[in-house]
């Protein structure tokens, strides 16, 4: 390490100072938000501000030290950006808890955040080289499938709010699907690295698109089948869309063939329409989206939540009502699925745009890591993980703003929910690990002229 530091390397700097500065800034904004919530509600700075703020600050400092020690070349922005989103989520949940809505619990969320940071640190420390994951391609695929199937099993799974995506272990309920998506992205990356040449090159050209061979359609059809099964058995439209989208995007990254994307979209639309014809719960969701304004659906409760969310965003306007001055209690589940709408009411369009920008920057850092990586597996994995994050934000934000039918996905890092928080922190840990490998300067030769290379592991 020291040799690399002494060498003037113009390409990348570690930028640890910038990282620490941005991290402090993020924690400061979160503390400001707490204070603002308190001032908005009753004109006093809440007593919990220091506890929450310092708690978050301490956690992030620990995460920073782990990064400085175990992944010094990691991207300087990922951690601060995620910290801010996570912190704003905490503040919003705290704010919703103040209104007395059932289920909103900021202390719980802070505890899950702490666990998330521990998972993050553990992943970064244990996983010295992410390329090891390539060896577990099929293991990861199997694990992913098992995790997806777990909630359907009779004893383990429970149905909450119409979706069968939870399992109970001890006193906790976990959504294994959140971890399944990580395992499956690892599987897709490993699988596509091995098979991408045949997927990209074989096939014939028809009109202006390259059609793949019929037998290469196998994996796409299997993934399609799995995601439709998730849709039908677990009534979880979000995860289904998320998985299939991620697979198609990674297929596109690996092969650069538009035909795969077209095939994927056609398959999914076809499957969704078919499912809508056959299964009533999909039909209800779709109808609630298309005719959300209808009085009947609103008072029946089908589109009630969606419309209340839209009213909230609408009353927020450009600048918002101010933290602590909105009415998030009117929206059912404003602390989980609809936290984006609740935030929209209090921070307005300006705040929402800043939030979306922060998400975009996280994704940009991930894609940048994919570009900078030097081997195909890392490229695909980083690309896939960043895509899945962006896709998740799109699906839920599109859902609550009524661009697409509403699906129950979490807003990454913001919504209340332990499993999602843990899984997303692990996702960021993987990105950090890869960005460390990608930005680390290449090993240097000992002699001036020689074929021997220094190996850095």
């Amino acid at each position: 390490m020291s040799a690399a530091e002494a060498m003037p390397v113009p390409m990348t700097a570690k930028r640890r100072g910038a990282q620490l500065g941005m991290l402090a800034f993020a924690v400061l904004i979160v503390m400001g938000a707490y204070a603002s919530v308190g001032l908005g509600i009753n004109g006093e700075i809440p007593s919990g501000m220091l506890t929450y703020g310092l708690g978050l600050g301490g956690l992030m400092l620990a995460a920073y030290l782990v990064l400085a020690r175990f992944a010094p070349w990691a991207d300087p922005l990922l951690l601060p950006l995620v910290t801010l989103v996570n912190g704003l989520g905490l503040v919003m949940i705290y704010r919703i808890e103040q209104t007395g809505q059932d289920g909103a619990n900021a202390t719980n969320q802070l505890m899950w955040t702490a666990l998330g940071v521990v998972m993050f640190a553990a992943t970064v420390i244990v996983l010295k080289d992410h390329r090891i994951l390539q060896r577990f391609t099929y293991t990861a695929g199997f694990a992913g499938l098992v995790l997806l199937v777990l909630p359907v099993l009779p004893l383990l799974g429970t149905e909450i709010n119409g979706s069968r995506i939870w399992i109970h272990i001890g006193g906790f309920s976990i959504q294994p699907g959140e971890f399944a998506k990580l395992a499956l992205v690892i599987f897709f990356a490993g699988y596509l690295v091995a098979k991408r040449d045949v997927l990209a090159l074989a096939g014939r050209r028809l009109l202006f698109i390259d059609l793949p061979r019929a037998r290469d359609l196998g994996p796409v059809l299997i993934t399609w089948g799995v995601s439709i099964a998730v849709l039908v058995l677990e009534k979880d439209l979000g995860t289904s869309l998320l998985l299939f989208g991620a697979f198609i995007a990674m297929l596109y990254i690996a092969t650069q063939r538009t035909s795969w994307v077209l095939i994927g979209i056609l398959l999914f639309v076809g499957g969704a329409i078919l499912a809508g014809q056959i299964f009533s719960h999909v039909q209800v969701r779709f109808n609630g989206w298309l005719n959300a304004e209808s009085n009947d659906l609103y008072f029946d409760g089908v589109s009630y939540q969606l419309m209340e969310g839209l009213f909230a965003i609408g009353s927020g306007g450009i600048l918002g009502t101010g933290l602590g001055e909105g009415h998030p209690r009117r929206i059912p589940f404003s602390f989980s699925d609809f936290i984006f709408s609740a935030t929209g009411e209090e921070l307005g369009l300006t705040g929402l745009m800043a939030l979306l920008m922060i998400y975009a920057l996280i994704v940009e850092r991930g894609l940048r890591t994919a570009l900078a990586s030097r081997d195909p597996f890392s490229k695909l994995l980083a690309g896939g993980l960043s895509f899945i994050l962006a896709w998740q934000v799109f699906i839920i934000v599109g859902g609550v703003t009524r661009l697409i039918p509403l699906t129950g996905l979490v807003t990454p890092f913001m919504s209340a929910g332990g499993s999602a928080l843990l899984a997303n922190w692990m996702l960021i840990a993987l990105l950090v690990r890869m960005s460390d490998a990608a930005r680390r300067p290449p090993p240097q030769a000992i002699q001036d002229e020689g074929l021997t290379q220094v190996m850095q592991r």
Partner: protein
Amino acid sequence: MSELTLLLIRLAFLALLWFFVIAAVGVIRTDLFGPRTAPASARKPAKQAKPMAKPKQKKGEPRQLIVTGGPLQGTIINLTEMPITIGRANDATLVLSDDYASSRHARLFPQDGQWILEDLGSTNGTYLERSKVTRPTPVPLGVPIRIGKTVIELRK
């Protein structure tokens, strides 16, 4: 708490949020233009001077190696003073997953302000433009180097 104070707090918070975004973009800037932009070098001249004997980059010298064709298309490697190895081996600077590439296929190294391309005894050969590289050859800017399915170029 008066309405006005609350309004001011609200605006200040939004401004702070956007300031964070802008600061983040500022950090990214170095990724695009390198850390040695004008204000940065003006602020830290002492740090620049310390690692002496670092030859200044002249204007005509290539700064980046860009993959323009093949599966790794779009990859950019910034050129430093260190040689670059290309091949299928995991420790190569540019790792190719190409059946036509050898594990240690070719090497690029700087010499007297030029980058020299040397074939490391590869099976299928390295091509500079159309001609096969048999001995270390200087690479001009923008001339394609072909290794298997991969095409790379030096750019400023």
